[in-house]
């Protein structure tokens, strides 16, 4: 049964009368428990699509079904990560992680347990009382992951979460996310990236989008079994798939 399903999705921005068609006839299905990445040229409408799935972007045309119901607004049970960690500077690490629970006004103690566990699994349990400005960029993004997962969201939405990090930290974050995923701390996930290797390492499937007005032109299944380890990136098959995807994206750029 499909968990997220887009049917003929269209998005037209209308800033000052000049209509910009960002998405055009986007169709896709995401099953429950799948990790799906979106690759595509800059400005094609990836963030727009992600924000639609968060219920934050109005849908101009078409139908988006989530968990069997049409999407009409924010569901509340999503986890979101952005390129910027967007932590609140006056709150400690643990309080930042607990933020979604504070907003949902649920009893805090059970959530605190999960927050501790998440912070432990990303190696930040010693920093619970620290404030964001005392952490490195990678550590902040790890806090941001914990915050996205703390209320056990049914969808995890990530918009280029590691793009602002240096290459080494980025690799570490990939391994960390892979671990969290394989410990089943996260469920269905939609992940936007510009890194083909990152997408292949993490995903079950990859959507390739064209330029604006964008649509999904390819739906690539990543055949590697789980649990995966970071050594997978040295595998011949892995690199062959990356090369295949790269040429596919270059084609879609030209077209």
């Amino acid at each position: 049964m499909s968990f997220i399903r887009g049917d003929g999705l269209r998005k037209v921005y209308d800033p000052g009368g000049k209509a910009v068609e960002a998405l055009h006839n986007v169709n896709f299905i995401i099953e429950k428990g799948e990790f799906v990445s979106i690759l595509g040229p800059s400005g094609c409408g990836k963030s727009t699509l992600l924000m639609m799935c968060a219920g934050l972007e109005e849908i101009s045309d078409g139908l988006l079904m989530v968990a069997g119901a049409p999407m009409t607004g924010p569901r509340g049970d999503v986890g979101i990560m952005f390129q910027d960690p967007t932590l609140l500077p006056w709150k400690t690490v643990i309080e930042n992680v607990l933020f979604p629970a504070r907003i949902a006004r649920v009893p805090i103690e059970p959530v605190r347990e999960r927050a501790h566990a998440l912070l432990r699994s990303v190696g930040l349990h010693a920093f619970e009382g620290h404030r964001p400005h005392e952490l490195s960029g990678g550590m902040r993004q790890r806090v941001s992951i914990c915050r996205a997962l703390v209320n056990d969201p049914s969808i995890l939405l990530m918009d280029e979460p590691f793009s602002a990090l240096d290459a080494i930290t980025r690799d570490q974050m990939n391994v960390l996310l892979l671990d969290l995923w394989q410990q089943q701390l996260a469920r269905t996930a939609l992940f936007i990236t510009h890194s083909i290797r990152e997408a292949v390492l993490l995903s079950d499937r990859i959507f390739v989008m064209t330029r604006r007005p964008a649509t999904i032109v390819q739906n690539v299944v990543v055949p590697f079994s789980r649990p995966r380890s970071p050594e997978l990136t040295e595998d011949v098959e892995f690199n062959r798939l990356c090369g295949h995807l790269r040429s596919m994206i270059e084609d879609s750029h030209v077209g």
Partner: protein
Amino acid sequence: MSAEAFSIGGVAAPRWLSGAFRFADGAMRPAGFILICLAALEILARTLAVPEVLFPAPSRVLTALVSNAPTICYHAALTVSQVVAALVISFAVGVAVATIFTLSRVINDMFAPLFIVLQIIPKIALAPLFVIWFGPGGLSHLSFAVCLSFFPILAGARAGFEETSADAVRLCSALRASRLQTLIHVKLPMALPQLFVGAKVSTTLCIIGVVLGEFVSARAGIGWYIVQAAALSQTANILAALVVLSLFGLLVYGVVAAGEIVVRRRMFG
């Protein structure tokens, strides 16, 4: 003065002490400059023998200050307590109005332009109107000062609310936070530094507002004292009153500025 001022005998000084040193260091030059100016004025007043009514020598102002200190301080304290009250009320009004504006688009669109237009009216000319509305007492001074000074805080709050990162607001919306929750949990704390910037401007406007109110009608307060002294041509007393008022005003401003520093350090690292 440099780094060695912050460690005494090789022992690192506590943070507040180093802050005090830095403050003293910063205050040294302006204070020295003022002293030099005062000395020059003193020499000028004595050599040119200007009539005291026109231009009293600084030493005369000092004598006037010392001999009238209890009276002047009484009136200044009255004025400054009104200034503080006006500042607190301005803060509340400014934040409340900005809050209403962010919570309701309709109200914002209806009234926000109006507030800008109100800024263009020379509000100082309204002082007599407040006396008619609120009587000659403290209430008219207070309300006039608030009317004069809440705008910078309102503007600061609105700027601060708008400065909040779009992603943080998006996160709140995705979690289905109410507008009020977003405001309390994210926008208001984010706006605090801007609020303090506004409050610093408001402080000076509050002082102007209260003193002006006292000029127009009062039975006490430093504005009233100055009007009385002027009627008797006691120029030295006027200047002495101004010195005391400036010192008190500086104190209030200093407290607000210190509050801003504390907030920035504590909340934003």
